[in-house]
């Protein structure tokens, strides 16, 4: 008997093994070609820009580029060295360079992030840099004696390396003291940790509220006859299809002090005109509007899971003597867990990054961390700090996601 596999050939005489490999490779190439556009799209529009943005949180060369001589002096002299004549000579040389290259403003802004009120020190000194002559120490201190402040030299030292953890420190309400030791910022300036905490707390609360509201709706949708449940489904989806801004503004109309609800309560005599309730431009407004906006993200996964649960299970439990509460708790609820898990994750992650709704209805105490990221992107233009805050937020979410995977299991999640 000959070796069967070796002698097997296709109709045109090629060995079967080779022919199979060739056709599989072709299929693989085709599959790759189909995926390539999406892959490229994701890389170009998502991975690269976000990577670049996050890179800014640890890399800020504005000062190190503008001040090469100081960089050299800091390299040669360890932390704690009192700035000598050579240091001031390096500063003078860099100020002249800043004047030529018009970088004094940018360099000063970078130091100003660390030590407030120093930006004008740089722009003013650079403007007069050409008049500086040795001895530089006296000349520069004569311009402004603040140049002798050890805090400024400490800030220049940490800014003179382009790679820096400074922005992550700032994002955690920390800074360095004169000796370079990491310390907390003054109490009146601590804002970021408080807002990170509030963001997580509010997002958790909104997730729980969504869950409580969505569960009965989804159950109703899943158990009603199809004709009725379709109409209900449209009621769920209609707001989902409406613009976010329209929905946020609609809540303003409803909830504001001269708004529909307050006016109705006054007309009914439940509250008097002076006692109108503040339901918007505060934390309550943020919670109400965001719960409403995120509700469909909880209803839809729950609904799709509940549809697949046969009603006979609960009936069987009841017929075996379980009370309705026990049947719900021990039989129905555990089967909906994949839907709850998916909905909770979706709502929580969306809530943590929410920006426009708290900006519109949040007032003073309904602001989330994303509003401060937007502030640093758009107003203060301190993109490195914005990137550090965003990086911390992203890291926090990934950590929670990992915990969630360990506790609930991502594979148990069911989106539909």
């Amino acid at each position, binding site marked *: 008997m000959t070796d069967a596999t070796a002698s097997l050939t296709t109709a045109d005489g090629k060995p079967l093994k080779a022919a199979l490999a060739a056709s599989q490779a072709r299929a693989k190439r085709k599959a790759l070609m189909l995926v390539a556009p999406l892959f490229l799209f994701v890389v170009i529009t998502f991975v690269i820009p976000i990577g670049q943005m996050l890179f800014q949180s640890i890399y800020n060369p504005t000062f190190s580029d503008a001040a090469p001589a100081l960089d050299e002096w800091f390299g040669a002299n360890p932390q704690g060295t009192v700035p000598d004549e050579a240091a001031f000579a390096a500063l003078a040389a860099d100020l002249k360079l800043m004047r030529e290259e018009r970088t004094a403003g940018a360099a000063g*802004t970078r130091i100003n992030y660390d030590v407030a009120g*120093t930006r004008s020190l740089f722009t003013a000194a650079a403007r007069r840099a050409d008049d500086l002559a040795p001895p530089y120490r006296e000349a520069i201190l004569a311009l402004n004696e603040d140049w002798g402040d050890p805090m400024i030299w400490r800030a220049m030292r940490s800014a003179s390396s382009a790679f820096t953890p400074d922005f992550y420190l700032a994002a955690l309400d920390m800074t360095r003291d004169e000796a370079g030791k990491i310390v907390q910022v003054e109490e009146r*300036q601590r804002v970021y940790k408080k807002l990170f905490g509030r963001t997580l707390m509010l997002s958790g609360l909104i997730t729980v509220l969504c869950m409580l509201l969505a569960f009965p709706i989804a159950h109703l949708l899943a158990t009603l006859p199809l004709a009725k449940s379709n109409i209900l489904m449209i009621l769920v989806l209609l707001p989902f299809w409406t613009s976010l801004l329209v929905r946020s503004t609609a809540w303003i109309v409803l909830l*504001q002090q*001269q708004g529909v609800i307050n006016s109705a309560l006054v007309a009914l005599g439940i509250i008097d005109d002076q006692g109108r309730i503040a339901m918007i431009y505060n934390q309550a407004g943020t919670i109400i509007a965001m719960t409403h906006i995120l509700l469909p993200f909880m209803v839809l996964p729950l609904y799709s899971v509940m549809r697949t649960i046969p009603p006979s299970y609960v009936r069987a439990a009841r017929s075996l003597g379980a009370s309705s509460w026990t049947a719900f708790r021990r039989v129905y609820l555990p089967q909906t867990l994949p839907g709850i898990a998916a909905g909770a994750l979706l709502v929580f992650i969306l809530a943590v990054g929410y920006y426009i709704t708290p900006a519109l209805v949040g007032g003073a105490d309904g602001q989330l961390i994303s509003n401060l990221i937007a*502030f640093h992107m758009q107003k203060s233009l301190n993109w490195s700090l914005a990137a550090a805050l965003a990086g911390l937020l992203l890291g926090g979410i990934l950590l929670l996601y990992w915990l969630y995977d360990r506790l609930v299991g991502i594979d148990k999640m069911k989106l539909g």
Partner: protein
Amino acid sequence: MNNLKKTMILTTALVATGFAVSAQEVNVVSWGGAYSASQVEAYNKPFTEMTGIKVNMIDADNPASPLKAQVEAGNVTGDVFDPEVSDAMRLCDEAALVAIYPDDLPSRPNGTPAIDDFVDGALRDCAVANIVWGTVIAYDTTKFPNGLPTTAADFFDLEKFPGKRGLPKNPKRTLYLALIADGVPAAEIYEKLGSAEGVEQAFAKLDTIKNDVVWWEAGAQPPQLLADGEVSMTTVYNGRIFDAMVSEGKPFDVIWDGQYMDLDMFAIPKGSPNPEAAMEYLKFATDTQRLADQAKYISYGPARKSSAALVGLYKDGKTEMGPHMPTAPNNMTNAVLDDPEFWADHDVELSEQFNAWLAG
């Protein structure tokens, strides 16, 4: 009439150079709303009429943000931007803007060079002012039957003048008002704000109304808050509230005490797509007649002294614009001038404290 003729000759000369480079388009990024509308009427339409260069008006919440973003990304699409003076100076220091020389700007019709014609602080290395605007207190006259508020201190008096207050959600236009209301003279504001005690004092004063403040962010919000009855008094950009009072006939009035005066600038970013047309536009828009024309459409003061005399009636044909100008002498008795140097140094620090105070 003679002035007009000279202006015509001047602008025709500008047109000629404009045509020589054959630029056909210029993108102007401005603040939107009634403000952009006034620029379209006073600058863009006559500019297109005279030069044939199309002007595209683009709205931004704060034109300095797209300016910085475009320059950093190396993809500049706007030609002329309308930033605030502090942003213009910062961007100039960061080498993002084209230098503008006062000698290049059109002189007065009677020959006075531009440098002597603009108000103080209007000509900067990379930017030239177009208008002077004020942040003022406005109130709903129907809410106070027992006497109207007249001073900044009244803004903080919740007992005599009940109702919510509207304030912008930033330190720049809130802290000074608290100090003015606390009796600090306008001239000493920056000295106070530069010290920890002064900032403390401002926040302490703000604490007295903190629970009754509705915070606004965009310039269009405060007139709406007043109209909705959501607040009884608010600070507001004077042009916006003029629009609500005169064009829409709302029962609002303005307190000029403690107004915060600010300049708006025109600046050209480096690497703009139509630099020659942008410069022509900038020169055209900041000449005496054009600046005076803008006052016909919005109540912002022209940045040229020579324009003041040409300011006449509002576009409705009956409202005298003079008393509504932030630059009118009666309106300037207790005015705080914007200090871009101070804010470049302290904006970050005070913003952090302000945000911490808000969140607390």
